[in-house]
């Protein structure tokens, strides 16, 4: 097992700039996490509300390092046959057929059972071997020659048992296959785990990871994100819409709009050739931001205040 050296990850500043060139504007903390993950060869457990760019972080890192991204989406009932490896049963069955036909040639002239068995042993046992192994995402990440970014998405959706399965991979970068032995990673992959906090992750798993919590961004950071993702929106509108989304997040909503929704909204406003927010415009595009009818109703009541606030704050700056 060897490790690669990436000049892109030489310092926290390098990472920040690198991410920015791929349109991922991140806080210092995120860059520090990636830096440490690389320096210490530790997985990162990324937590935070949906839509703050947890998955995007892994994708951008893969782009930055120009390595393949291997993604494992977790769900209830995910087991090792889908995450680690599976045997190619069909081929194994065929192999036994072939073996059966060859058996006659092989045992020709053998006298007695002991000799036959001895000859059979010489034949080599490839029934359980890498030939018949079907790698699933986790094993695939271990087999990459040039290193890989392994993204284990929404690990909180999986079962407790699955977490234990991950422990060996996360601490030693190896997988034990009972029939073959231990498969070590050819090159240490960089591992990101994301969680939406729908349940507590076990301490054993947490202990092995760096813990990164991504909150909703500050107004400044979100403006920078919008500027990089939707560059055509003019400054005033951008500021106004970010302020508006921020005040929405203060309301008591079922699902608060995340960064991805802000970006979508900025795009929609651009398509509608808007240059400032007004009540009608917001009302007709609100379904981009809010996904529940209740939330839209709640916002409707406050609409006038929200728009006025975001506009005045825009001027104050």
């Amino acid at each position: 097992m060897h490790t690669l050296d990436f000049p892109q990850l030489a310092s926290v500043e390098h990472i920040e700039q690198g991410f920015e060139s791929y349109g991922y504007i991140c806080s210092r903390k995120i860059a520090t996490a990636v830096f440490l993950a690389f320096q210490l060869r530790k997985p990162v457990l990324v937590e935070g509300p949906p839509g703050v760019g947890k998955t995007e972080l892994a994708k951008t890192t893969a782009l930055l390092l120009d390595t393949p991204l291997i993604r494992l989406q977790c769900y209830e009932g995910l087991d090792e046959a889908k995450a680690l490896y599976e045997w190619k049963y069909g081929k194994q069955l065929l192999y036994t057929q072939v073996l059966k036909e060859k058996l006659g040639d092989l045992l020709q002239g053998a006298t007695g059972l002991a000799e036959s068995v001895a000859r059979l042993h010489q034949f080599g046992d490839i029934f359980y071997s890498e030939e018949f192994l079907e790698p699933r995402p986790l094993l695939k990440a271990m087999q990459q020659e040039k290193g890989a970014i392994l993204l284990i998405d929404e690990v909180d959706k999986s079962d407790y048992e699955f977490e234990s399965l991950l422990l060996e991979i996360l601490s030693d970068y190896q997988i034990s296959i009972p029939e073959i032995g231990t498969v070590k990673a050819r090159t240490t992959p960089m591992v990101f785990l994301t969680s939406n906090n729908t349940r507590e992750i076990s301490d054993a798993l947490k202990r092995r990871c760096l813990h990164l919590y991504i909150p909703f961004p500050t107004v400044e950071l979100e403006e920078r994100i919008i500027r990089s993702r939707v560059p055509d929106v003019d400054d005033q509108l951008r500021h106004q819409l970010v302020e508006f989304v921020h005040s929405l997040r203060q309301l008591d909503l079922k699902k608060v709009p995340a960064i991805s929704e802000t970006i979508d909204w900025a795009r929609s406003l651009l398509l509608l050739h808007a240059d400032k927010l007004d009540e009608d415009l917001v009302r007709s595009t609100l379904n981009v931001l809010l996904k529940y009818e209740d939330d839209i109703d709640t916002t409707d009541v406050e609409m006038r205040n929200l728009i006025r606030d975001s506009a005045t704050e825009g001027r104050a700056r």
Partner: protein
Amino acid sequence: MQSNLVNFVQVLRTHDIRVSPAETLDAVAVATSLGYSDRSLLRDGLAMTLAKTPEEEAIFLQCFDQFFQQDLADFADVDAQDALEEEPASSESDNGSQHATDAALAQHSALEQAAEDNPMLEALLQTALMQSLVDNDRNELTLAMNQASEQVGLQQIQMFTQKGQFTRRILDALGEEHIRNAVIELEQADSPALAVLQRYRDILREQVRDHVEREYLIQAEGKTRQFMDEILSKTRLNNIEHVYLHKVQALIRKMAKKLASRHSRKRKLLKRGRLDMAKTLRKGIPHDGIMFNTYWRQVRKEKPQILAVCDVSGSVAAYAKFLLLFLYSVQDVLPKVRSFAFSSHLGEVSGYFDDYPVEKAIELVNWKYGGATDYGNSLLDFAKLAMDDINSNTTVIILGDARNNNGDPKLEILQSIYQRSRQVIWLNPESRRSWGSGDSEMLRYQSACHFSAECNNLKQLERIIDQLLKSTR
């Protein structure tokens, strides 16, 4: 610095952040690769290895700021320092710094002059302590303080009330009394050196106070809290002062979390589900591909049900509150809980818990159902509401003092619940001795329960919930 980091981990541990030795090693690795120059960078990096939840991170940040503040304030003359710092900045500063140095010199000479007339002050100025103060030698002073604190056993500090005592003892061990005596003497002589010496004395006191404060933080603050938790968990729940209520709630959360993780493994039952084709094929391979045995996916057992029936009349309301808080805090691992509240009549209150946070819901329940108790009537209501849902998978928990104001206990209803359900648990906040005394129907009700227990503090409550979790699996 490494030992400092280990000390810091110690502080975190006393603040309830669990840090394993492996994580300490990680923290050291983080510190090495990030360096110590950028404070906020180091803080973020350490937070990632040592704190594992947003809550822990908040505690971490607080501890970090407290722990890694400037070790010892520079106590050189403030004016002189300001002037010295200005020096490179402005061209006219020459005069300023000259002035400041003069002032400092003047102070020294004032002391020395006074010392010439006074042999005792002379001797004082020669002591190591005074030397290090006058020379602003912080290393020397820190060293002396550490020695003194070892001498007086500062590591044994347990309670915050001991802070003053330890400060005094360390000052004595450092030989502060000489300075004190000199100050008194100078006061009597009305000497110009008085102010200077007083300043040194105050600096010393302040330094020692900070030192003790820091040591207390490392050694004892957490312990004091653990001690308090221990006391709280053994106090009768209705005796807990209002100010401590939020602490109790935090404590319940903690206990609930512990229980939840202990019982979190999902139950499996050998109930047949879908055919597991892959496994059947695989197991058939040794038999030439003939599938001798079939293998089936397992189906999870249906979650059993819990019905919690709480008396919320004045005498037991406090207990009901904690029981409900506990039950809803272990919701993750506990089967679905339906809760009912009663005093004179009974109603289902599960809805409140779906709509509001637990604390709010409990307030609402108390407000709506509080009043004089009538067990007979309430059991009747309960039978009407829930009897049909009670089956061999149902656990019924009743919390109440069984004091029925001499009304009809309607024991037969409880008996029929007893027969239909998996188990009936009665929790009584009164001590076992007073069961059956006066208007208490406890002995009679007890005959129709699988299990009855005294339950008036958190420790007992925790034990009962633990048993409950075991028995419902």
